[in-house]
């Protein structure tokens, strides 16, 4: 269970990204966060695993107060959160297998990581997960030799081998063509359900959110302006979420 309460973030540039965001995710459900660019969607996800340091507020994951952790304890908590990125963020010059296994870096010693000696169960899990995302046989290809869709599948596999308690998914399809986008999004939702874990999915594409979501959280200017079922996305609600934003930026 994820609990976010009163999250605040202002960047040193003066950009007030989050203004008291609160939300709860109880079950293994995919929650889609929509909102115009600059609404604070990315900041919210990055505050949850503390890649970005929130100024105020509390984050709890399965009872553990993430916002109170430092150093090694924080890194241990990050292992429990798998992140998937808009630009995939694979290590381009490493192989697919190395990229997937990097999801286990929080569990192995530096010496083992250096020699690429991951425990055999990790390697097995990596093979299984790669097959599950449709990339069996790609293990030894270099990441920069893959297509966009394939890269994102590697990104998904890397997040999954962490055995996370939650998936943080940041605009996973913005760098993909429409057809690939749909397949990748379907895969993410499916895998989260299979693993029985919740997923927080940032997305700017409202039709895509409608197609996959049950619950929608609408962010506008750092505030939650809607939190409810996808059926509640009436034109008035959308106006509240995207209010004042020109159509093209939605």
């Amino acid at each position, binding site marked *: 269970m994820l609990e976010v309460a009163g999250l605040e973030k202002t960047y040193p540039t003066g950009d007030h990204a989050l203004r008291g965001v609160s939300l709860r995710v109880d079950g293994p459900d995919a929650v889609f966060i929509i909102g115009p660019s600059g609404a604070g969607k990315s900041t919210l996800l990055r505050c949850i*695993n503390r*890649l970005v340091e929130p100024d105020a507020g509390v984050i709890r994951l399965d009872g553990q107060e993430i916002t109170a952790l430092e150093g*090694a304890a924080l*890194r*241990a*908590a*990050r*292992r*429990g*959160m798998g*992140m998937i*990125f808009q*630009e995939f*963020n*694979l*290590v*381009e*010059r*490493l192989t697919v297998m*190395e990229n997937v296994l*990097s*999801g*286990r*870096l*929080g569990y192995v010693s*530096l010496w083992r*990581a*250096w020699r690429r000696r991951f425990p055999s169960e990790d390697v097995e899990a990596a093979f299984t997960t790669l097959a599950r995302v449709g990339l069996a046989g790609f293990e030894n290809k270099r990441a920069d030799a893959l297509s966009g869709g394939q890269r994102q599948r590697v*990104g998904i596999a*890397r997040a999954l081998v*962490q055995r996370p308690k939650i998936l*943080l998914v940041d605009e996973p399809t913005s760098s993909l063509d429409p057809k690939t986008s749909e397949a990748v999004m379907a895969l993410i939702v499916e895998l989260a359900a299979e693993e029985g874990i919740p997923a927080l999915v940032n997305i700017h594409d409202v039709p895509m959110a409608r197609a996959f979501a049950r619950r929608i959280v609408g962010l506008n200017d750092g505030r939650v302006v809607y939190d409810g079922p996808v059926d509640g996305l009436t034109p008035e609600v959308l106006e509240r979420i995207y209010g004042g934003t020109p159509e093209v930026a939605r």
Partner: protein
Amino acid sequence: MWPRPWMGPVVWTAGLGFLVWSAVNLEVSPERIARGLARFGAVAARAFPPDFHRGGLLAEGILESVEIATLSTLLGTLLGIPVAVLAARNVVALPVYAAGRGAITLARTFHELIVAIIFVKAVGFGPLAGVLTLTVNSLGFFSKLLAERIETIDRGQIEAIRATGASRGAVLLYGVLPQVLPRIIGLTIYQWDIHLRQSTIIGIVGAGGIGATLYNAFSRYDYDFALAILLVIVAIVLVGEGVSALARRSAQ
């Protein structure tokens, strides 16, 4: 351009005056240059044909130079990688960065001959002083350029590795190192190429290598032997350049 109109003529006059005074003080005159050129002709005439009779001495000196160059390149890379990390603003905190940059600036301050003199005083004549000299030289050059490369790496890859709960060391190993590895290889080879050249000169101040042999040949007026040494240096530098070009191409 000038804050006051009278400043222009004053600065120009002063600058010109300094140039003239320098030429007079250093006794730079066309006549002396002409005389020197004539003497150079005489030296060149005595240098031909090059004398390769003392091949053993020559080979020994050259081999020592190559050894100094290679060993110092290796040491310079091993020490230079951590220093470069410490001097990259995007991976370390500001005070560490300042210290790292400081070390690099210090290593770059003095010409290698000055560094060589200091090391000869410290560890005595011989190749050890040469190895230490060129290692310091590496630190300045290699670390500076590698640090600049590290500062331009893709942050997304680092972010992704951090997000897995990886330690700082693991982030360096998986997020940073793969991105800069081609640069490390390229710089190391380039560094070796440079060191090959430098290792032929530091012998003049006693830091080992062919330089001492060359200096002695000149001071004993063995111009033919000196020419032989110079020819071998040219050859070795050309070979080094070829090897480094090949190696860099295959490291892409």
